[in-house]
């Protein structure tokens, strides 16, 4: 019970941090651009939704392993991740290029 409460709190804080990134930072949404950002080493943090197809998830994780970039598995599906980004479409994966005012890159990759 305590663990569930704790994840809810951190989950909300991730949402808050993500909202701040959307407002002040640079990001890309979507599988193709995430891979592009990893290839040209611009991406700093990758967030993947939980219903991302496993092959695609493995591929992004492999690229991130090569690029030494953190990957965060978002606790929600692509609909939730899209909502967290403030968009009206689904987002399966996103890459944060510049965090802006947010501290998401420092605080999030700890839990993977």
């Amino acid at each position: 019970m305590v663990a569930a409460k704790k994840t809810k709190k951190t989950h909300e804080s991730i949402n808050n941090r993500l909202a701040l990134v959307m407002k002040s930072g640079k990001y890309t949404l979507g599988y193709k651009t995430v891979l592009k950002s990893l290839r040209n080493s611009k991406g700093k943090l990758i967030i993947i939704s939980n219903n991302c197809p496993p092959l695609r998830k493995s591929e992004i994780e492999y690229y991130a392993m090569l690029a030494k970039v953190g990957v965060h598995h978002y606790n929600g599906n692509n609909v939730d991740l899209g909502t967290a980004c403030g968009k009206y479409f689904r987002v399966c994966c996103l890459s944060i290029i510049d965090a802006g005012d947010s501290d998401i890159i420092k605080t999030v990759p700890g839990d993977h």
Partner: protein
Amino acid sequence: MVKFLKTNKAVIILQGRYAGRKGVIVKSFDDGTRDRPYGHCLVAGLKKYPSKVIKRDSAKKTAKKSRVKCFIKLVNYQHLMPTRYTLDVDLKDVVTADSLSSKDKKVTACKETKARLEERFKTGKNRWFFTKLRPPKLIAVQDPIDYLLLLSYHMLSCTGKACILSSASSDEI
């Protein structure tokens, strides 16, 4: 945040005639050129892998089985799957951007890369590079090496190139 599409990186070609083949990046053009305004790289790869050499083979047979056939190609980054392996064979002086300009330059470059890759194969190093990308039999993957094979195989089968891989192995009907 580390650039990984660098020279000497082993990659797997995903699209085109050479899909499923392993190659090594010789020169990368991250920002593209006038003709190709996208990130691409010059890849030297194996068109034909060397066959399995066994202890019983005579010297003549070993020499015949260790032959490789190479290709040189400019490939878009999107059509490559980078791996965690590297192959440090010095091909920079042999394979250059202008060796693709005419047919005979390409042929001489291919011949030279063939010689260098064959001698690397004969030393027994970089064994992963010289083995064909086989479709994995088990779905449960523990080994990180197999993980990449599974990944690449599935990616190739998504694009319909699995037929090339399955025709190579005779035990799959």
